[in-house]
């Protein structure tokens, strides 16, 4: 019986040590950023030529992507003021990294629709759309359609 007791206590403390190792590994994985979405958006916007891009409200987020901005920590969207332009920047700060699947699916849907719209008569727009960048970094997602997309992505990663 004494043996059993010792065994039980040993198992309990081994479990606690394993839990601490698990938490330490989560904390050191560094996938979650505390940067504010305002700051990240500002840095991304500064990294490229904004031209006709201007900030859009949550209703536009819903209309173009079908997602509710309120479900996330924050959503920032810049769209072009002309229907003939495809430049677009979407930055989402997730509440939970699990939400990334939904956002990625919404982005893919938007991209497919845009490609369908410009297919056949807008080779310039189609090329920009095909060269889009979709970058998921922990609790942040960036989707950018722009000739300077790479610079925007670099600024995005640096801001997190």
């Amino acid at each position, binding site marked *: 019986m004494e043996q*059993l007791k010792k065994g039980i*206590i040993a198992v*309990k403390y081994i479990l606690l040590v394993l839990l601490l190792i698990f938490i330490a590994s989560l*904390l050191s994985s560094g996938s*979650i950023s505390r940067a504010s979405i305002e700051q990240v958006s500002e840095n991304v916007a500064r990294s490229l030529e904004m031209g006709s891009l201007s900030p859009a*409200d*949550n209703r536009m987020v*819903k209309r173009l992507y079908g997602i509710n901005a309120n479900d996330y920590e924050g959503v920032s969207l810049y769209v072009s003021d002309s229907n003939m332009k495809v430049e677009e920047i979407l930055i989402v700060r997730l509440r939970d990294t*699990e939400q990334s699947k939904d956002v990625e699916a919404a982005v893919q849907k938007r991209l497919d629709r845009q490609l369908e719209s410009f297919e056949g008569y807008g080779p310039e727009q189609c090329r920009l759309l095909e060269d889009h960048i979709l970058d998921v970094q922990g609790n942040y997602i960036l989707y950018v359609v722009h000739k300077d997309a790479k610079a925007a992505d670099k600024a995005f990663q640096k801001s997190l």
Partner: protein
Amino acid sequence: MIFSSVFFIFVFLPIVLLVYFLVPRKLKNLVILLFSLVFYAWGEPVYIVLMLFSILYNYVAGIEIDYHRSRGMDGRARFTFWMAVAVNLGILGFFKYYGFLLENLNAILPAEIPFRALSLPIGISFYTFQTLSYVIDVYLDKVEVQRNIISFGTYISMFPQLIAGPIVRYADVEAQLKNRRVTLARFGDGTAWFLRGLGKKVLLANNIGMAYDAIAALPSGQLSVLTAWIGCAAYTFQIYFDFSGYSDMAIGLGKMFGFEFMKNFQYPYTSASITEFWRRWHISLGSWFREYVYIPLGGNRVSTAKHIRNIMVVWMLTGLWHGAAWNFIFWGLYYGVLLLIEKYALKNILDRLPAFVCRIYTMFFVMIGWVFFFSPGMGSALRYLGAMFGIGGGGFLNGTTVYYFRNYFLLFIVLILCSGSYIYKKFLQISFGGKREHKVLVLTAYLLIFLLSAAYLVNATYNPFLYFRF
């Protein structure tokens, strides 16, 4: 994975049921345990580690408490017990409140403490309360220690109520873990509960949720008084049908596997007082706090000052349980204050007032409460409340108000009717009235709920679940 998803309904559930009913009786708990772990890992591949830890640690702690107590070593039993409580609350506190705590510390301290906030493990608030109920009841000798790790793991991880309750106390399912029977009638009853819950969630909550989301996204200048009230009413119905629908699905699934879980909602929006509302809303959470916090603190059998303290402690914790944010704490304290006012000042007045006045009074304060609940922070809650009472510059009504009123008027009528017990009672009368044609009618109604919900789930991208956040 959530119940109201195509994958769960058409793939996961049929497979679990098939395997469960094919294996011999002694393997049934193991089947539930393994599939529950798959169910949890589907959404939380990383945090499954925490779930396994909870199962193993509390299993061992229960045996150790029992070992010490049975040998009269009360001091050691007490130490093991408090250590288990501290570990369980420590995990919950760390994963749920650590970011909140450090954010607030950083706001008041001169130097910034760097930290990384972790995402919240799904269902942690629910299953931690279940493990605590087990450890506390074993320590108090209210239940037998569970020596079968499969049975214990099944209790903690059971997928029907794992993610959003009801919070099942170990004492309530202790016997069922050992011995339970699924009859055709119980399975049928479970299916009916599941379908009603699915309909509430998918057909009612999701549809009215779209109105709330659209109104919440309006710029404050466009939010008229009436639009703000429509938005608040939309959320009021969304959270009820969303959460109670999910609870009904959980209860139904439980029945399909032979378990009986407690009812979590009892028409809360028909309450004639706030006190009554909390007896009918999220019943399993209320009874947990009553059993493990309120009564140990002395309940109401103490001086008035201590009773006030007890109520405020319980309601602050209830608020905090819902989320690591000031608006949730305020929301909890708001109910604490309302309950105290009712008990010490309003009780006699409410008793004399006509029932419909009491119901309007209750719904008014419940709706105000939901504003604190749905707002991302205290500032936005106060801004929204301002809009509801004409301080916001959006006017009394505008084109947007007319648009939402016209589009959602019929749905609101349906929601009001479904919030009361009349429709369901009539439905039961028809179901069990004995007439053959009535039975066909009821069966058709359930089939229709299923087909409409499935069609909606296949087509719609909008299928949030509000209580995932807790």
